[in-house]
């Protein structure tokens, strides 16, 4: 039985497609995405606030992701540094390595890697959890027990990702830089203080601000996509898998698009 309540209309008032059937469906989807986002921004301010659930999600999303994301960040720091060395060595400029990895990690790799891994780990979890809650009528159960499921499930998760992904990005960036330092230290015998001097010499406040803003946007995207896909998943067990899968794919895709757009904006700001 198809019980999707986003599809009003009766036999007596048959819908005519505004464009084509398929195009209409895309626009309806877009409208639903817009409404979902708008609802988040409306409900995030309204009481009651589900603090306990927010904390629980922060714990799940932030703290529980830390080991995985830190490890990945560390390895990427080492690998990236190691692979960048030869091209700088051609110019005899390996002393520029800290500056190079600083710019790469703080501007791009830190936020991006964190977001991508979180999209994989957190996005899929949110999509699957909400999807299965939709399928087993837990979301309906919440609604009929007069608890706003959107607030309890969506707002708390989106808030948690929006807050925790930036925090994770801080850790990833630090740990990646430490990985880079380890590699630079082994090969160029650079001391920690010199390394970090060069790291901070190469970046500006704009870089830190841009990265923070970026990771906030990435976090919001991951939470939003996971929640939207899960919350609106179709009935049936396959709907859960689909929700989890498309959460990851869509979130990653959007993250890259956002990265591209934000880069353009930041470069425009930098030019002034």
């Amino acid at each position, binding site marked *: 039985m198809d019980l999707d309540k986003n*599809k009003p209309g*009766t036999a007596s008032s048959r819908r005519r497609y505004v464009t084509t059937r398929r195009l209409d469906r895309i626009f309806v989807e877009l409208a639903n995405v817009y409404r979902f986002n708008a609802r988040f921004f409306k409900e995030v301010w309204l009481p009651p606030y589900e603090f306990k659930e927010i904390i629980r999600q922060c714990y799940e999303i932030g703290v529980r992701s830390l080991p995985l994301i830190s490890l990945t960040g560390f390895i990427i720091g080492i690998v990236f540094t190691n692979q960048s060395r030869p091209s700088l060595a051609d110019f005899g400029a390996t002393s520029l390595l800290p500056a190079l990895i600083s710019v790469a990690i703080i501007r791009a790799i830190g936020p991006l890697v964190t977001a991508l891994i979180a999209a994989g780990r957190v996005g899929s979890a949110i999509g699957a*959890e909400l999807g*299965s*809650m939709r399928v087993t009528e837990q979301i309906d*159960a919440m609604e009929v027990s*007069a608890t706003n499921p959107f607030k309890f499930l969506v707002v708390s998760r989106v808030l948690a990702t929006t807050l925790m992904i930036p925090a994770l990005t801080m850790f990833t960036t630090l740990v990646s830089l430490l990985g880079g330092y380890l590699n630079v230290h082994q090969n160029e015998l650079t001391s920690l203080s010199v390394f970090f001097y060069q790291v901070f010499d190469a970046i500006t406040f704009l870089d830190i601000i841009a990265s923070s803003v970026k990771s906030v946007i990435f976090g919001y995207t991951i939470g939003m996509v996971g929640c939207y896909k899960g919350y609106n998943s179709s009935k049936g067990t396959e709907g859960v898998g689909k929700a989890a899968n498309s959460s990851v794919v869509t979130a990653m895709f959007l993250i890259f698009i956002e990265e591209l757009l934000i880069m353009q904006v930041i470069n425009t700001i930098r030019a002034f």
Partner: protein
Amino acid sequence: MEAKEINPNIDRNEKVISIRGLKKAFDDFEVLKGVDLDLFKGENLVVLGRSGTGKSVLIKIISGLLQADEGSVNVLGREVGALKPRELDALRLKIGFSFQNSALYDSMTVRENLEFPLIRHAKHMTEAEREDTIQYVLEAVGLLQAINQMPSELSGGQRKRIGIARTLILKPDIMLYDEPTAGLDPITCIEINSLINEVQEKFNTSSIIITHDLTCARAVGDRIVMLLDGQFQREGTFDEVFESNDERVQSFYNYNFID
């Protein structure tokens, strides 16, 4: 299988739910084609019908989960379709909804599941009072020992009982059961049936029970209506309904008992 003794406390003068001319369609498929229904105070009303005939749609419209296309749905004197979200929530506190798959929150223990509505809607309660209430409803469904278990550790019947306990915890006036015996073994079915009757007595609720299980219908129904082709075809006690010569009613009966 014995038919239920009709509850003597039914007040035929007080309608808790009154539905007139209800229509609902999904895309171009009309599920409910003008349904009229009254639920009297203290009554157990069974809605019989095959899968996909819109039984669940009916109680989802009553609880405001779905919107009716046409017709009026009056619950406890309020027109459900016209309520603002806050008013609807207030009304929902008086309605208990037992879902087909119990719909227990997987990520929470039984205690947290039961606590969930209490924390939000019985804010005046102290922690001790809450604990008492939880114990009381768990005892009512006979599963006090499961209090610290996760839903995944429970059997289907147990989950169903916890689901019913969770809806009872706010002491609703109306209970809506969606396929309470679906997917359960016969003995568990009987247990659930008697639980539904106990709830009716202990908590003095009026109930609508959606089912395609005739055993269940006979065991819990004070009155039975049959949903066929989007409309109620027969109404009365179990025996009255199946006295009909209507082919569809008979095939339904045969399917259940002779198969």
